């Protein structure tokens, strides 16, 4: 076996063995809450079919902390509470408000945190299937680019 090949193989083995376990994202969720929303009673089948763009909507605000040494990205959120979930951001231009979907997810820096809060980025729950009363809990599954899926529970409160 050529020496150069052995040396290369040794380098690969050593570099694999020396990789620090902290070279990854370590995601945790904090300060997670939603607003109360009342949803009208029975809907016709045709109305329910259009609930995602004409129904009652909710919101989730939270702080995503990353204690790892690699950045991560929130790609999507899933929940059974509504028809569709989208990542949105509110942009204020003076006293004018614009809202738009966030493209390519939301970045969470290494050794840092990202806050989703009122008048900024938020998780939009579109077409709620039931009312959200103060004290309720919403189960959410947050899909991250590197950390996989994290489950979190948002508490409904009236600010």
């Amino acid at each position, binding site marked *: 076996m050529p020496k150069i090949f052995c040396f290369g193989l040794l380098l690969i083995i050593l570099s694999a063995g020396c990789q620090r376990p902290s070279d990854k994202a370590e995601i945790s969720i904090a300060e997670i809450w939603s607003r109360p929303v009342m949803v009208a009673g029975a809907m016709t089948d045709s109305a329910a079919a259009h609930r995602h763009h004409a129904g009652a909507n909710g919101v989730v605000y939270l702080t995503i902390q990353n204690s790892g040494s690699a950045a991560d990205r929130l790609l999507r959120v899933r929940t059974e509470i509504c028809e569709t979930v*989208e990542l949105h951001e509110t942009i204020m231009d003076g*006293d004018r408000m614009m809202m738009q979907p966030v493209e390519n997810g939301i970045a969470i820096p290494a050794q840092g945190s990202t806050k989703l809060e*009122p008048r900024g980025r938020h998780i939009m729950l579109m077409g709620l299937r039931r009312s959200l009363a103060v004290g309720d809990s919403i189960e959410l599954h947050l899909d991250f680019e590197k950390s996989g899926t994290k489950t979190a529970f948002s508490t409904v409160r009236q600010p």
Partner: protein
Amino acid sequence: MRTTLIFSIALAVWACRTTDTFRGTEMPERPIADFKLPDQNGRLFKLSDHRGKVVLFFFGYTFCPDVCPLTLSTWKRVHDALGADTAKVKFVYVTVDPQRDTPEKLKTHLAVFSSDILGLTGSPAALKEVYADFGVYIEKVNIAASAAGYLMNHTTRMFVVDQTGVLRLLIGHDAPVEDVAHDIRLLLKEKK
């Protein structure tokens, strides 16, 4: 000597007087044209029916999960802070999205905050006149990347009309509750 003393006391009293001023942005006084729009309870809201009351307006829509409900939460707290004075105040939420916001939808949406908040909708033409009179910016934006289909861009200020139907103040949607309550009380002190 006595005249000097009286004058000095009067001057001191005048100097020590604290003038209470509005915390919102004062506007050049302009009467709002009377208008009629249906509310969420099936009754017709007519601005001139509310002379003698301070009327707060906000232009938003029920599909919005962020700034609009945030403002309604503030209104709920203002409503609670005003106590007995609430009887002389009207909170009026005018939709910028009549396509989605039926009276029934407004009623369900507003019930979370306070039954005292009126939700107005109407024909696009009738609403357009009201937007124009207040100077409200509204823009419908079609968004292919969202299941929403479209979203509304809009002004987020509160508009405060005094007891005589004159637009007097603009208040930021994120103003502290105590500032909003303070300005309403100041307007209520004025002679009709």
